[in-house]
């Protein structure tokens, strides 16, 4: 009843198109990644090669470390900022709104060159400088996620209730506001985590080595291994996102769908 013949036709067409555009490269890459030695037969040797590579574990670890740090820094910086903008500093919102859209306007390549020009030596000499720029790149997404989730809570009432019960305003933020926007916070955390994990542009232009940039080097030695590496990163990312989105759906405030609102 719900699906008329024309509807079934469009759904079929959409599915076919999606398979053709999105599934084919994935399937082809997966098939290649399980090829045996010299491209003959099938085996796990490409994945074995991958894990045995010198840089594999260390670069993966570097990337994870940078991603965790930038996720945390993002929260430390943006949760208080977003909360204050909603409670007491509403006048500043247009300015912060605009600043937070800037990373979408300024190409990452340009930001990277600017960073090379301007950052003091002490910052440029440590790979942890990347953390700061990962936070900047994720800013439009994390800010909008927190902002949307704060808008859906009746903050004024919560703050008044907590304050009139005698809570200090730090207690109010930590014990009342933060729990009520938990969904938004997890969303923001994972968004910046995922972005940092896959970041290539600024990392490579600032001459640092993380998992994604190491991939390019590894690819030059063994194309089948590089394909296995791609399948590994891609499938890993999809699984991570699906886990996050199911977690977020359970917590009612969706995280991934906030990306839409960033832009919408």
């Amino acid at each position: 009843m719900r699906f008329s013949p024309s509807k079934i036709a469009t759904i079929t067409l959409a599915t076919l198109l999606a398979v053709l555009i999105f599934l084919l490269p994935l399937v082809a890459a997966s098939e290649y990644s399980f090829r045996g030695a010299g491209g003959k037969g099938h085996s796990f040797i490409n994945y074995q090669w991958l894990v045995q590579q010198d840089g594999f574990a260390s670069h993966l670890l570097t990337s994870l470390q940078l991603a965790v740090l930038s996720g945390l820094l993002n929260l430390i910086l943006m949760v208080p900022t977003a909360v204050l903008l909603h409670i007491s500093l509403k006048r500043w919102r247009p300015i912060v709104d605009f600043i937070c859209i800037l990373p979408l306007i300024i190409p990452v390549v340009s930001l990277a060159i600017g960073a090379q020009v301007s950052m003091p030596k002490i910052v440029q000499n440590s790979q942890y400088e990347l953390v700061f720029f990962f936070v900047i790149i994720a800013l439009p997404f994390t800010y909008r996620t927190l902002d949307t989730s704060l808008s859906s809570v009746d903050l004024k009432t919560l703050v008044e209730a907590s304050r009139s019960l005698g809570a200090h305003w730090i207690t109010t933020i930590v014990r009342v506001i933060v729990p009520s926007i938990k969904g938004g916070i997890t969303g923001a955390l994972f968004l910046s985590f995922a972005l940092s994990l896959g970041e290539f542009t600024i990392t490579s232009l600032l001459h640092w080595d993380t998992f994604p940039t190491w991939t390019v080097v590894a690819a030059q030695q063994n194309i089948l291994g590089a394909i296995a590496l791609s399948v590994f990163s891609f499938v890993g990312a999809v699984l991570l996102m699906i886990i996050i989105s199911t977690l977020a759906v359970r917590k009612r405030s969706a995280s991934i769908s906030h990306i839409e609102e960033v832009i919408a």
Partner: protein
Amino acid sequence: MKNGAVANQSEGTIRRSFSISTKSSPLFPFFIFVGFFLIWPIISLIIRSFKGNENEWTFANYLPLLHGSYFHAFVVSIKLASITALIGAILGSFFVYVIVNSAGPKFTSVLDSICAVFANSGGVPLAFMFIAAFGTEGLFTKFLKSVGWDIYAGNFTLFSFTGVVLVYSFFQIPLMILVFKPALQGLRKEWSEASINLGANSITYWRHVVIPILTPSFLSAFFLLFAGGFSAYATARAMTVGTVPLVPIIIGTLVDGNVISNQTNLGDALAVGMIVVAGVAMSGYLIAQRRANRWRAA
């Protein structure tokens, strides 16, 4: 009276507790961070792009951008961004239409996460996956050859302009789905009912209601896709190795040190040029966005 007093008092406490810290001082960490890691790099970049080798002020760095190979690179980059944004926008809206009309909320949320990954996959893995599928030895290439269509018979290679267009569509379409879906979901049932009650058929409804309402959202999404495609670096870097002249790739090569000595500041000028192009696209995005929001506020 008593309630009012309590309310007043509590409001007073709120104001007092936050007044110590008002006047933006709690926002200092944010402004300092963004100022140092976003605004300051960009300002330094712009300043240095106007400096010559002797640190004198000059416009000379920008002259190569106005003609010859660097100008050509901007043309190619803008062409690539427009074509892939258009493909992404058109196919993406078709998918959105199908998703909004047919998929349940659970499936939609799974699709959302998949789209989020695909939209952000504009990286190195993408390049290798396409090599596996459409490269000279690619699985799909061989399949097509076996049914009698050799895609490599003509000029096509994956490392050409057409090849890059193909690969970029892979992240432009999912981005469009993420960006455009809320607009289509925002179409109210009442509008279609109202227009049918007023005697419209579905063609008139689409022509006079749906298309005018969705056009601003569509345009803003297009501009966003354009800016993304224009700035994309990783995939092209992993794939083309200079076979397609794109501005971000040229900047990358300049940064990596293959520079003619008197052109050190050329990279800065190119980077500022990219900000200008992306800035124009994003202004289009913001203007279209403002128009689109008119319908959403109600």
